[in-house]
Each structure stands twice: as structure tokens, then as C-alpha cells.
């Protein structure tokens, strides 16, 4: 099968395991393209893509833009901070105005969960969700799982602990869906205040002791403390969080096994992850960034390829 079961990538929840495998196989090919002397292919040369970011982003926006340019698409960028959204324009009006300039695909990040789902019901272009509030961030989950597959050979049967601010994390939810679809066991770990109340109903283990989580897992995906989403205080201080929930070299030295450390970025060094871990041989953080471009190229190629 060489076709996705969907016209949009709104969330991992909505796609099948076969879709994920197809994206990975296509990303393998694009990763090879990215290591050529000329890293560009003409596949999307007659396609225009709008990157619409209603929320701040560096890594994801750059990664999408690079993926689009490597595929030879025409790219327009939009960020809400310097747009008519500030003047009171609605989401549909903003997007329809952009689409009337003959745009074929929309990559959107929005602070409201479900915004891309809403948009997909109202416009004809293909939509890729680049993060919607605390809901999903599908391409991040795909590149995380792709990086695990690359490092460990397979995702199935692996134990993955997601450590940190699960409550405010769209990466956590997409990762849970993606890893489970690929046959991995998932654990979430963090302070009790930052673990959603009914998370175990998703079939994940819950742990509050980071050392125990590290002992259990093959891969630890450490998440950022999302202070910008926290309306109230969930823990007394960053220093205390770091003391009880930060991952450092000493903890890894106590393990009698190999472990892979991941982080979706940006890292708060010294808070959730110490530099001696982030820069260690256990870390595949920079490989994640590299894989992000290949995975996003695969997603755009597969979505755009349907007539």
C-alpha cells in the first residue's frame, strides 16, 4: 500500500498503524535524499504550502519549511503576531484568505485543541497539524518513534517512559498513541500535579519516581516544563522540580543497562535534563531534529500525492 488512509494529518489517533509504517518507509528514502550532495527533489514543485503559526515555534516551523523546500514546494509563512488576527479576523477568514491565493496545503499550529480538525471540515486544502494546544503534535510523535526505530531497530516490544510535564504536553499524547500503535509499552512519569487524572485509561503505566521509571524503560523521552501553559503553580520551584524529577548523569550511572534519552526540545538545561545527560552518548536529541525533516518530507509527500 502506498497511500495514507487520510487526506489530513490531524493527529496520530486518527491514522492507522499501516499509515505510520508507510510514513516511516518513505522517511527512510527521504533521509537518504538528505545525505546526498544535492538534497533536493522536485516532487512538490507545483504545490504551494502555507505555514500558519498562531503560536511561537522555532524548531517545528524551520523543520517544516526545510522539508517543504527540499521537496521543491513554494512556501509562504504566516505568524499571528504580525497579522490581521490581531485586528480581530476569525480563523476561517484568515485561512480562506490565504487559500484564495491558490494554496494547496496548510501546516498549522494553534493554541486551541481541535483547531485543525475544525479547519479540515471547512476548507478543501490538505491540513497538517503542527501542534494544537495541549492536544496533539503528530509529526513530533512520528519523528520520535522513527528515531527509536532507527536507534533500536524496532519500536514493537520496547519500553518507553515519558517523563515530565504530561498535563500540558501535546507531545506526550501523540507519543502515547503512536508508540502504542507500533506495539511499545508506555509509562508516564512526573509529579502528581502534572499527570492527567485519567491517563491510565489510555493503557499507560503511571510512575512518580524518575529513578524507577529509568530502571523500567529502554527509552526515556524527557519533556519540557511548559511554564507558558501553566496558569497556576504545579510545583514549588524549578529547583525542587529539578531535584526530584530532573534526569542527571548519576541516575544513568546507577543503571546496569543501555538507555536512550530523547527530548523534543527546547531543553531547559538543568531543569528536566542536565547537560551531562543531554550531551552524553545516550542522547539522540540531535538525531531527532535531523529525522524531523525526513519524517515531515514523507508526510507532505504522501498527503500531496493523492490526486
Amino acid at each position, binding site marked *: 500500500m*502506498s*497511500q495514507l488512509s487520510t487526506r489530513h494529518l490531524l493527529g496520530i489517533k486518527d491514522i492507522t498503524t499501516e499509515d505510520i509504517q*508507510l510514513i516511516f*518507509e*518513505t522517511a*527512510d*528514502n527521504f533521509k*537518504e*535524499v538528505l545525505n*546526498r*550532495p*544535492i*538534497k*533536493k*527533489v*522536485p*516532487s*512538490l514543485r*507545483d*504545490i504551494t504550502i502555507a505555514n500558519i503559526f498562531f503560536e511561537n515555534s522555532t524548531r517545528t516551523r524551520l523543520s517544516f519549511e526545510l522539508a517543504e523546500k527540499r*521537496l521543491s514546494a513554494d512556501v509562504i509563512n504566516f505568524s499571528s503576531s504580525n497579522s490581521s488576527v490581531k485586528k480581530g479576523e476569525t480563523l476561517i477568514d484568515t485561512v480562506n484568505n490565504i487559500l484564495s491565493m491558490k494554496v494547496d496545503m496548510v501546516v498549522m499550529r494553534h493554541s486551541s485543541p481541535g483547531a485543525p480538525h475544525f479547519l479540515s471540515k471547512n476548507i478543501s486544502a490538505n491540513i497538517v497539524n503542527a501542534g494544537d494546544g495541549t492536544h496533539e503534535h503528530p509529526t513530533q510523535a512520528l519523528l520520535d518513534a522513527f528515531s527509536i526505530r532507527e536507534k533500536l531497530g524496532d519500536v514493537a516490544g520496547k519500553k518507553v517512559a515519558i517523563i515530565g510535564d504530561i498535563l500540558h504536553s501535546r507531545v506526550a499524547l501523540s507519543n502515547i498513541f503512536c508508540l502504542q500503535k507500533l506495539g511499545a509499552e508506555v509509562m508516564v512519569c512526573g509529579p502528581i500535579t502534572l499527570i492527567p487524572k485519567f491517563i491510565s485509561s489510555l493503557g499507560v503505566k503511571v510512575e512518580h519516581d524518575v529513578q524507577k521509571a529509568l530502571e523500567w524503560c529502554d527509552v526515556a523521552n524527557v519533556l519540557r516544563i511548559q511554564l507558558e501553559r501553566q496558569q497556576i503553580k504545579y510545583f514549588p520551584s524549578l529547583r525542587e522540580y529539578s531535584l526530584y524529577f530532573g534526569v542527571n548523569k548519576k541516575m544513568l550511572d546507577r543503571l546496569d543497562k543501555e538507555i536512550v534519552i530523547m527530548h523534543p526540545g527546547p531543553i531547559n538545561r538543568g531543569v528536566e535534563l542536565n547537560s551531562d545527560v543531554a550531551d552524553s552518548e545516550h542522547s539522540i536529541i540531535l538525531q531527532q531534529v535531523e529525522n524531523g525533516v525526513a519524517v515531515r518530507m514523507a508526510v507532505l*509527500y*504522501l498527503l*500531496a*500525492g*493523492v*490526486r
Partner: protein
Amino acid sequence: MQKRLVLDQQQIAIILKRFCHQLIENHDTFENTVLLGLQPRGPIVLDKIAKTLEEISGQKVNTGYLDATFHRDDFRRRDFPLKANETKIDFLIEGKEVVLIDDVLYKGRSVRAALDAMIAFGRPKKVELMVLVDRKYTRDYPIMPDYCGIKVNTLESQYVSVEWTEKGFEKDAIWITEKA
């Protein structure tokens, strides 16, 4: 289904041997030559030629697999995107003489895409095309093979199927078959 044998195992083996001698004649020591199998069906022909070349001349030739899926001109003109295959070229082709190898030459569109894809690995000095079967009068592009196993007359309603023992068939064979 109606099937007509074009080449049997022995005939294919003779052609592959002929190809090898022609290559030795034209490329001598293969110092500046690389052979590229065009995915998905060229690599199997390439592997056989590389093996026979080594047997005949004792020379190991630089070989690679080239996939041109991302360079095709029918993207978004099909119902769904084509699945890509592995490209495996561990060298640059800058200044090299390249022999592109495929099993069947039909419209010429795959070869056009391959010429485009190849440039990502450098600017070759010269490119030649080697095919086992040339379907006559079917070309969409002005592309002709430099090395050809057999030329056949075919209709639009027919396709050429190539069977290899490596792919689980009893014998190597090339057939013309009516499309279902």
C-alpha cells in the same frame, strides 16, 4: 491469460554475457565507470551483470541502486503516490561514465526521471543505457538504449513481465502478457 515467451533462461544468460563483453570493450578497466541499476527492477539485472563481469574479467566494478520515484513527472497525476525504493550510491558520479541498467524500456519516462535523479550525485562525463528488452514504437521521450538485449513489438494492451529465479520463479524468463 495469453502469454508469449520472449526470452528463456539460456537466451537471457547469453544476452547478459554479451552485455559484459560489450562493457569490457567500451570501458576497458572500469576505472572511471559506474553501473547503476534503476529501481525497482534494474538492480537484479545489475547484480547479475556485476557478477558475470567479475567472473569474466576478474574486475570488481563500482555499482549502485538508483531510485527515481521523487523525480517522476506523474506525481499527483496518479490516484496515489508511488512507493519509493532504496537508493544506494556510496560514491560520487562526478566525471564518471555511468551505465544505467533496467530490465524493460517502455515510455522512457522512468529513464528521464533517473537522469534527473542521478545529477544529485554529480555531473557524469557520459551516460549510457542498458536494457534487456526494448519495446519498440512506444516511447514518449527521445530515449534509446546503447545496449539492448532484444527489441520487441508490443501493443498498449500488453505488458512485458520479467521472471527471475531469485524472485521465486522456476526459471528466468521474459514474457509478453495481455493486461487483465
